[in-house]
């Protein structure tokens, strides 16, 4: 049992936290701009490399480099929106979806040109995990990642509940036409969506780098689980996306635990878990756990 | 012709249609009126099969069609138009009508691939029929225009033409007059009356303009709050206190809508 917690559950929660932060942006963009943003994973990568530059140039720790990560990702997101998504906004969303595929390619190639392709780490060496009660072992970076995710979740909740921009975002995500009648400045809301989505993606990207390493496919590899998380939480429900991310991460890690002597699923099928959850949801409960919008 | 029997339809806790029953006779033009939010369009969707009721049944032409999907009801002779235009925007006006014709052989995929000749005769007939219908509706000049480029009123005519293509027994018209100018509106009315008289199509229409309803309909159902308020001739309805209350009064029905 203790093995389950140490080696399946805690890594699952860590992975889930990363999915969760990425999924918030996916969910909000889907809810407000109404398209599946296929370049979101690459925004994560942009963030991770932004922090890497700061670590290299300034020699600071990745945590202090976070503002750079966020800055890079937010600027990238706003530029892409202005240049590639805005001109297509009045067309059927399919065009924007395809454009976002192209943007993913553009961002990744830019990273590869600027930073090269070899995988990098923020800091070398390994640390022994912290041990609690002689049984629970948890790496200190996992403690940091999980607690940072909790803080971000609370902050996000406060922002969405109490600030004007946050309330407007929720309103638009719930019903765009109603919001327009109510005189909400849609452009402003869209800007906020990108800022928050990209910032959280950047944080998630840095977390991936902290946990393992930084490479150019880092975000792209996580894109589909993030979509699954956004759907699970309900489109347009940021807190739902966080829950969804945690669930997907934990389930993905835990399916290979030998509950009944045999592992439920061969570990090489782990990635299928997110897809199966996603497809099942699309078919049986497309509004997600938290009654998100249906497009 | 059509029996709307004790229907209940619930949307997220609100009963849009609540134990409502009425009948649409086989001949003549029936009106369905009521204030906004009374459940008229929902009732149409339930009749046409785009929605399915939580309780009650829909009987059309002697068959219980409650469980049938829309496309099957249509092939039994039940056509409709939509409140907001639902044209096939990237197809020509003529094709919009041709596609609505029944072409069972041509629409089989294996025939389409291996025997492209099957269904050709039917297509030819359908085109002639479509052209005649366009002529009757006086929009034949637009036959080769993309339907998406039509004006709102022209789209309404297009939809009417499309509904006529399978020679239906009953046609549901959802606010055929909304957003249409006066001249075109009276033209549409003439067409409806002519069709009812010559071809024997029965009509049921949702309309806000009571004068228009008076011109067309022999019988009127009034809905409010998801229920049938009353039925009768247009004069009976116009003079009924409850109806006046619903429409103008700010009475008890107004608050909840």
């Amino acid at each position, binding site marked *: 049992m203790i093995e389950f917690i140490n080696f399946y559950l805690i890594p699952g929660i860590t992975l889930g936290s990363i999915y969760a932060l990425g999924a918030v942006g996916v969910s909000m963009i*889907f809810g407000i701009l109404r398209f*599946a943003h296929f370049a979101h994973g690459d925004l994560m990568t942009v963030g991770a490399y932004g922090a890497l530059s700061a670590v290299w140039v300034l020699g600071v720790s990745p945590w202090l480099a976070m503002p750079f990560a966020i800055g890079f990702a937010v600027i990238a997101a706003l530029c892409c929106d202005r*240049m590639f998504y805005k*001109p*297509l906004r009045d067309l059927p*969303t*399919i065009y924007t*979806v*395809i*454009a976002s595929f*192209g943007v993913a*390619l*553009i961002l990744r*190639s*830019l990273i*590869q*040109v600027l930073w090269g392709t070899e995988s990098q780490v923020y800091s070398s060496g390994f640390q022994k995990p912290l041990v609690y009660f002689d049984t629970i072992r948890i790496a200190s970076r996992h403690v940091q990642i999980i607690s940072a995710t909790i803080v971000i979740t609370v902050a996000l909740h406060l922002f969405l509940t109490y600030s004007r921009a946050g309330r407007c975002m929720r309103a638009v995500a719930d019903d765009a036409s109603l919001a327009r009648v109510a005189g909400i400045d849609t452009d402003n809301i869209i800007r906020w969506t990108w800022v928050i989505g990209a910032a959280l993606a950047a944080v998630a990207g840095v977390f991936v780098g902290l946990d393992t390493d930084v490479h150019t496919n880092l975000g792209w590899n996580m894109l589909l689980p993030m*979509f*699954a998380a956004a*759907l699970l939480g309900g489109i347009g429900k940021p807190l739902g996306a966080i829950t969804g991310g945690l669930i997907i991460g934990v389930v993905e890690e835990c399916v290979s635990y030998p509950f009944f002597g045999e592992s439920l699923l061969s570990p*090489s*099928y782990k*990635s*299928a878990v997110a*897809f199966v959850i*996603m*497809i099942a949801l*699309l*078919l049986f409960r497309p509004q997600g756990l938290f009654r998100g919008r249906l*497009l | 012709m059509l029996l709307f029997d004790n229907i209940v339809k619930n949307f997220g806790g609100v009963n849009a249609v609540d134990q409502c029953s009425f009948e649409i006779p086989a001949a003549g033009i029936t009106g369905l009126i009521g204030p906004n939010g009374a459940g008229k369009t929902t009732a149409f969707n339930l009749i*046409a099969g*785009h929605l399915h009721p939580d309780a009650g049944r829909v009987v059309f032409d002697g068959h219980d069609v409650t469980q049938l999907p*829309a*496309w099957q009801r249509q092939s039994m002779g039940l056509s*409709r138009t939509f409140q907001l235009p*639902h*044209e*096939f*925007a*990237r*197809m*020509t006006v*003529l094709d*919009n009508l*041709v*596609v*609505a014709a029944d*072409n069972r052989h*041509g*629409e*089989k995929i294996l*025939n*389409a*691939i291996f025997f*492209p000749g099957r269904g*050709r005769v039917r297509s030819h007939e359908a*085109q002639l029929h479509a052209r005649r219908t366009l002529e009757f509706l006086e929009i034949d000049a637009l036959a*080769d225009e993309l339907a998406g480029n039509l004006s709102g009123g022209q789209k309404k005519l297009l939809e009417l033409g*499309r509904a006529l*293509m399978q020679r239906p027994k009953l046609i549901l018209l959802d606010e055929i007059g909304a957003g249409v100018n006066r001249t075109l509106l009276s033209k549409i009315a003439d067409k409806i009356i002519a069709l009812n008289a010559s071809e024997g199509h029965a009509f049921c229409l949702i309309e806000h303009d009571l004068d228009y309803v008076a011109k067309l309909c022999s019988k009127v159902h009034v809905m409010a709050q998801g229920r049938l308020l009353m039925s009768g001739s247009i004069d009976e309805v116009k003079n009924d206190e409850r109806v006046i209350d619903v429409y103008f009064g700010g009475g008890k029905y107004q608050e909840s809508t």
Partner: protein
Amino acid sequence: MSAEGLAFYLIGFLTMGGIYAVLCLALNMQWGFGGLFNAGIAGFYAVGAYTAAILTSAGAASHVGGFDLPIVIGLICAGLLAGITAWGIARVCVRLKADYLAMASIGFAEIIRLVVINEQWLTNGSLGISRIPRPLEMVFSGRQAEIVYVVFVWLLVLLTYVVSQRLSRSPWGLVMRAIRDNDVAADSIGKNVQRFRVEAFVVGSVFMGVAGALSAHYFKFFSPDATEPLLVTFLCWVMLIAGGSGNNRGAIAGALVVWAIWSMTEIITSHLPIEWASRSAYLRMLLIGLFLQVVLQRYRQGLLPERRTTPVQAR
């Protein structure tokens, strides 16, 4: 460089271009006529390729296969199996709206990919299936065989084109377009939307399977890296959008033009100094990404836009 060299480059180019043309025509049946956003092309392509590979390759001890069947039977089975897979997926998925269908189909394609790389008894996993034959290999060899194969590929492009053209001009195609434009209205005029969509999804996927089989025979070897979604799904979408969705000739033209850009940009970048070699490859990807944006913003109709004339001619 010689004229002969150029000719054989063009033959190689047309072979790959032809395979992409089949894929693109197949996608056009789904998206161009039917408005079905299939983002899992790579999955059906893989099913077709592996079916053909297993049925036609010479014997192998490490996995099922080595039936050594004629290539035509392999092709037919590839199409059939891809079609059956598509039917299963379509039954549950086609009622989903565009973006959701895209996600579900990506999900299925990924599951297919995982099965392919994990079920070693069936597909030989990541080691791939080798010794896949090509048509008329006994008779022709070397450069002659290249010519034979390009003819073979383009015969199948022709077949796909004829089928696609017949479909789009038939009453079936007309209904499909109606569904694409407005499914509720199509429902209201008596068309079984679900049935038509499943049919379009299946028939398109059949040809995606055929395209997969064609590339397996071309490479004479097939391993999971050939099903990379970027190279199959994404590229195919770019081709169709650039060529003009809804138009069969546009689909073929798009496949050739985009494949030409994909292939020929490298002729320039490979002449940059060698220190630039690794960077130029990314610059090339960057250019392709930007090209897509230009097409989407400026040439949305594609090279050959959809024709608006009545598909069934009145006589």
